């Protein structure tokens, strides 16, 4: 079972703000889901390799030709940004001076 402290910590590292009633609700609901997931503990996975991807693909990168051909213009790439300046997106300040 998760404590309210656990939920508040999870919200913090997830960049989410929760009300007190949300904290209580998620305490119960997340606890139930995590209890359910425990059925995995009963399965023997000794000598079993994990599967991260069914396609078995490794390290695929965009080709330079494709990248140059299909890149968005600066104007299009920034069209949904709230604040921009001189072709750049203005982000939140991380350091308070």
């Amino acid at each position, binding site marked *: 079972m998760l404590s309210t402290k656990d939920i508040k910590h999870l919200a913090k590292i997830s960049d989410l703000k929760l009300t007190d009633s949300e904290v209580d609700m998620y305490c119960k609901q997340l606890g139930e889901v995590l209890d359910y997931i425990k059925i995995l503990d009963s399965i023997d996975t000794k000598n079993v390799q994990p599967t991260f991807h069914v396609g078995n693909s490794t390290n695929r990168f965009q080709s330079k030709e494709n990248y140059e051909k299909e890149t968005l213009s600066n104007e299009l790439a920034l069209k949904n940004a709230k604040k921009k300046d001189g072709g750049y*997106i203005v982000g939140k300040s991380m350091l308070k001076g």
Partner: protein
Amino acid sequence: MTILNAINKIKKKELTVTELVNSCIKNIEEKNADINAFITFNKEYALKMAKKADEKISNAHKSNSIDELYNKYPLLGIPVAHKDIISTKDFKSSSGSKILDNYYPPYDATIVRKLNDAGAIILGKLNCDAFAHGASGENSDYGPTKNPYDLTRVSGGSSSGTAASVASDMTLFSTGTDTGGSLRNPASFTNTVAVKPTYGRVSRYGVTAMASSLDSIGYITKTVSDAAYIYGLVSGKDNNDASSVDVAVDDYFSYIKENLDKKNDKPLNGIKIGLPKEYFGEEIDSEILEKTEYVKRKLLDLGATFIEISLPHTNAALAVYYVLVPSEVMSNLGRLDGIRYGHERSEFGAEAKRRIMIGSYVLSSGFYDAYYLKAQKVRTLVIEDFKNAFSKVDFILGPVTPMLPPKLGDNTKDPLKMYLMDVLTAPINLSGLCALGIPAGFSNKTEDHNELPIGVQLIGNQFDEKNLYKVGFELERAIGLNNGEDKNE
């Protein structure tokens, strides 16, 4: 109206694209206020595109080149609507969420581009559980989509608007996504056909990522024939999606084209179908089990043979799913910071917050091995179950959901109960297999005197879609449920 019927009529000058588009618009304007399938609807755009298509068709008729025109644009003039998590340059794409209710993508998703290139006409964008998180459509920030067969019930999810729009003749087909059952579930609730492609067969580019190692991009149609007709147009390797696979695209429609007007005796001779005993437990609604048995008898009549198989990690697969999905969701939704696009993270709905926090928890230092790595190992066992099964059979038949379409609000207070809806569908995604959701019939009358649709799923091995469509087509014909005509025609 099916896609194939519409094209036939257009080719014979019995129907114009403007008439076809107008009939969809009429249904949207009459029914959407009740059903809530569309979030965005652009009538002017659709009619403008219809006029352009009619001009092309008219010119082709004059020069006797209508078949050539349809060889070049196989979906010319066919109305389509896209699930809201699929990016469309000219339409708002909110992913069913308020956090993206101001987002206009700067590009089209690959599936949208391919359908546009084939001549399809976009009617609008469809309601869904926000970010495709859900099995009932009720996690949408735009209100739930109602089931066209009973407005007090859900239409399934997460591709709720995708299914309801096709079932209520608002469009001829609709795109959607299936990460753990999100096309097969709503199709089974609405008497429609769901296409869940092999992982990597259809590009994910331009689709809001939910769980990237599971997301499959597909669509819902009225018939298997329509589904097969479209499949080759949207499949194939895409340089913009590193997980799309370079496997040759088959002619998925050839068998149907050759056999459409033929009545075959025992066309499925030699085909072996497995019935997983774990899919027929007492937790599955008895009417759904009966209909699956009925489908089995139809397939036997067609010449197929059946054997009982076992997929022993079926229940564990759902637990694997609900470790891996939140983990990938947590990572994928990390990009929503309100800076490059969309609003602040405070706009996330309850289910997105739930999944983000579960993901943060199971990936935390100290828990990673116990949850995430353990789940990936059990995933290997789930895949081995299917490998063993496919060494004995060609296809697997089973129900789609454990229950008939629930009443609105029945499962919203209990997330775990909602998650259990995916128990028969999520293992297919974990294994990257392909599947078709096929209508099997209707339930007995409910207390509200409605008969509710019931579907089954036919599961195929990776990249075995060509054979899957053959079996699906023959089965659909034998069941004889959907002749493709509107209910009010």
